[in-house]
């Protein structure tokens, strides 16, 4: 019998809630979130960091969760698409903007866009259309042709600005 893998307890604060699981060192953050914590909103589209569907915020910064081991971010604060809602569970501004602008079709890449745009608008709350397109240019979508996602970025900026 080959030796059993050594396991590590990993604790993350996910969407404000401390969550722990015991996993091997090679467990990817994406798999940790999806299969150990069963937060399946984060999707995996390529497993090599190109498509951006697995983007989550680690301590507020967007990262590709398929390129990180869970153990390397032990103790971090993680925001996933499930955490981009309002406190009452209603759609958050980026999510609402996607609905308003038909910014999604199959919805598989969408969580990565929502997290990416959430982080981007923190940095640049009032982007131009050109900046909005540039902001999403690291994420792949096969359904929408991006036009309505660009519109969603602009709409999300409006919705955020309207908030008290």
């Amino acid at each position: 019998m080959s030796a059993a893998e050594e396991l590590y307890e990993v604790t993350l604060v996910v969407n404000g809630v401390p969550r722990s699981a015991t996993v091997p060192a090679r467990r990817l953050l994406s798999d940790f979130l999806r299969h150990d914590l069963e937060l399946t909103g984060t999707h995996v589209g390529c497993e090599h960091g190109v498509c951006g569907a697995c983007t989550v915020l680690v301590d507020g910064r967007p990262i590709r969760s398929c390129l990180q081991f869970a153990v390397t971010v032990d103790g971090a604060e993680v925001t996933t698409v499930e955490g981009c809602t309002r406190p009452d569970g209603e759609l958050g501004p980026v999510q609402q903007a996607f609905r308003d602008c038909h910014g999604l079709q199959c919805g598989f890449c969408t969580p990565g866009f929502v997290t990416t745009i959430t982080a981007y608008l923190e940095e640049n709350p009032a982007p131009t259309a050109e900046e909005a397109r540039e902001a999403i240019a690291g994420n792949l979508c096969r359904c929408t042709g991006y036009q309505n996602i660009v519109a969603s970025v602009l709409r999300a900026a409006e919705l955020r600005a309207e908030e008290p």
Partner: protein
Amino acid sequence: MTTRSFGEPIARLEDPRLLTGRGRFLDDIGHRALAAAFVRSPHAHARIADIDVTDAVDVEGLVAIFTHDDLDGRAGEPLPLLIPHEALTHGRTGYALAKDEVNHVGEPIVMVVATDRYVAEDVCARIRVDYEFLPPVVGIEAAREAELLVHDDVPGNVAAHMVQQNGDVEAALAAAPHVLELDLDIERSASTPLEGRGVHARWDPDDASLRVYTSTQASTSVRAALAARLELPLDRVEVVAPDVGGGFGVKIVHPWPEEVLVPWAAIRLGREVKWTEDRREHFVGATHERGQLQHVEVGFDDDGRLLGLDVTVWHDNGAYTPYGIIVPIITTTQLLGPYKPGAYRAEFFSLYTNTVTVTPYRGAGRPQGCFAMERTMDAIAAHLGLDRTVVRERNFIRPDEMPYDHGLIFQDGRPLVYDSGDYPATLDKLKKLIGWDEFEAFRAEARAAGRRVGIGIACYVEGTGVGPYEGGWVKVETDGTVVAATGLTTQGQGHRTVFAQVVASELGVPVDRVVVTTGDTRRFGYAVGTFASRAAVMSGNALASAARKVREKALRVAGEALEADPRDLEIVDGVVRVTGSPAGAPGASIPLATVAVLANPLRYAFDREAERATQFGGPVDFSKPPVAEGDSPGLEDTGFYSPPRSTFANGMHAAIVETDPDTAEISILRYCVVHDCGTLINPRIVEGQIHGGVAQGVGGALYERMVYDDAGQLLNASFMDFLMPYATEVPVIETDHLETPSPLNPLGIKGAGEAGVIPGSAVLASAISDAEGFAVTRMPISPSDLFSLRLARESR
């Protein structure tokens, strides 16, 4: 207030779930399932000499290793050839696990089941397969030359040879004042949905039933195929398409090897088993499309009118033909577009190569056909010195010539007859939208600034809504919720919204009261699938029919309760009322929810509402049985729609490009679309479909190709190297619509799903040719390709 949402650009009902991470895609279910992984062939063509698992069996967490020898009964037979055709004389399909020979890189050879995917892949890495190498056939030229064979028993590598003809082409060409010949080349691309394939299977040994979740475009047919292959009674097999992360054609293929093996293993092991495809597997283990060589010979008069058109296509079908020869049939019938070709002859050879199998990808042979026809139109215009739109207009089928019979047989096995369309009006709108007549001024201005620009146009007609049929089921629940189901699947088209719009409008209820289920054989067992831009046409009309029957029954039951003639009743906002009566008028109305209660005579009251339907619950006509003869309990019904033939949508695209005189970089400055898919159910969703299609068209024209080396290795099998467009590669898309209703179906709708992608390569080749001053005949075209073309011309 109106409850009619049909035709309105309402926001999608499925979005809140998908936006908050509550979607359920294949890999989101079955967290405790065993995981499968596959040893796939690293060679394009080889015999399997030996499979050695000695080093693998000790891995902790391993549950099972299966090879072809383990596949008992029909599971070990070749996979089905889904669409047989008499011209497909040498159809071949693979096995679920390779038996003796592999014919492309990526073909599955060994299945490993383990406690998780990491372990399963550890095991795969320790399994040694010995191969005897065979020389591979790579590329259409090599397949055509046939010095080497893919399958020993398929001479010339020819799976199928087919000729369709209408008129005497040889005579027409011989008599034509002008004849041109074109040689054209389109490379491979692929559907490449963001979610790959995946299968989850659960066997219940207690009632001997199987439930399979699969990321498919055809759950009812997967069910039938699995029941047959696993030798189970159909009613013991359920197949559910959960949320599907894009399909674009590839997921219409079934049963995939993995789709047979995962349920087979689940039964054999008595455990839940799941397989989620990774990206590299998708590139080498799913399917591709597009690759064709074409030869066109066209005869025309001095005005550019077609007299004869002779087209030969060499179609690369890859290693196997599980989906038959649908793609080249579509190419050779749909390339005619909006034109009258004069005498027409189309011949194709469908050829085997040792590469990934070819099956439909959005557009399904039409982009290649459109490329052939539109390159031909541009060539005629260039030859005669005519405006490209003028040549096209002169060859259009006129609106008063509809229905127009091309005298050919389409992909559905039925006559190629266009039902409706106004091509001159479409062209007119497009010319205005892009500013066709003002372009020369812009070109001169750009030229003066040292810039090189060009404008292009391409037209297409798309057969949509192909049969044989779809069905729909509609039921009003006793709380007033309307539940509806159709068997075909959904993978991003917004079916839950558009079908809810159809049902809500037919029935007279608010759209948010309608809950639609698709692709779940537990809810609706009869269906064909989602492909060929058919879902809205087929299931839309089927659900409309079911909803109309439910409405009729609701009026009848309400009429009895209100003591009114059903003909005097209407349903508004979920309330049946005497037509025109004010809301809340006593005795003049009854909620649909209550009608649903009354429609189901009960003995037992399970809640307060149900009390009204029990035997002592109200006045009863003792002369009649509680359920009338020929009637059935409940406010529900089923409808089917089966069209005599396909309905034909059309559209035209124009693009303005800029090519860098030094670097040959190609930029799209403007991209305009005029589109006619008949009556629109939801304009916003149709527009989204067009946007997505255009992005794929741009990808296919400028970026995407499958790069095979001579050994049959796919060199760019990752998103790092296969250049799928990002937001920065897709232009802003300007759209305009015409709505020419289809006379073939009650809702007047035509399909819209594939439209956007069809003219992509054609319109960009047209624009680049216009910018460069020479004809582009091979797509996709990269800056390097364009640079080489320039060098080749300069050195001539």
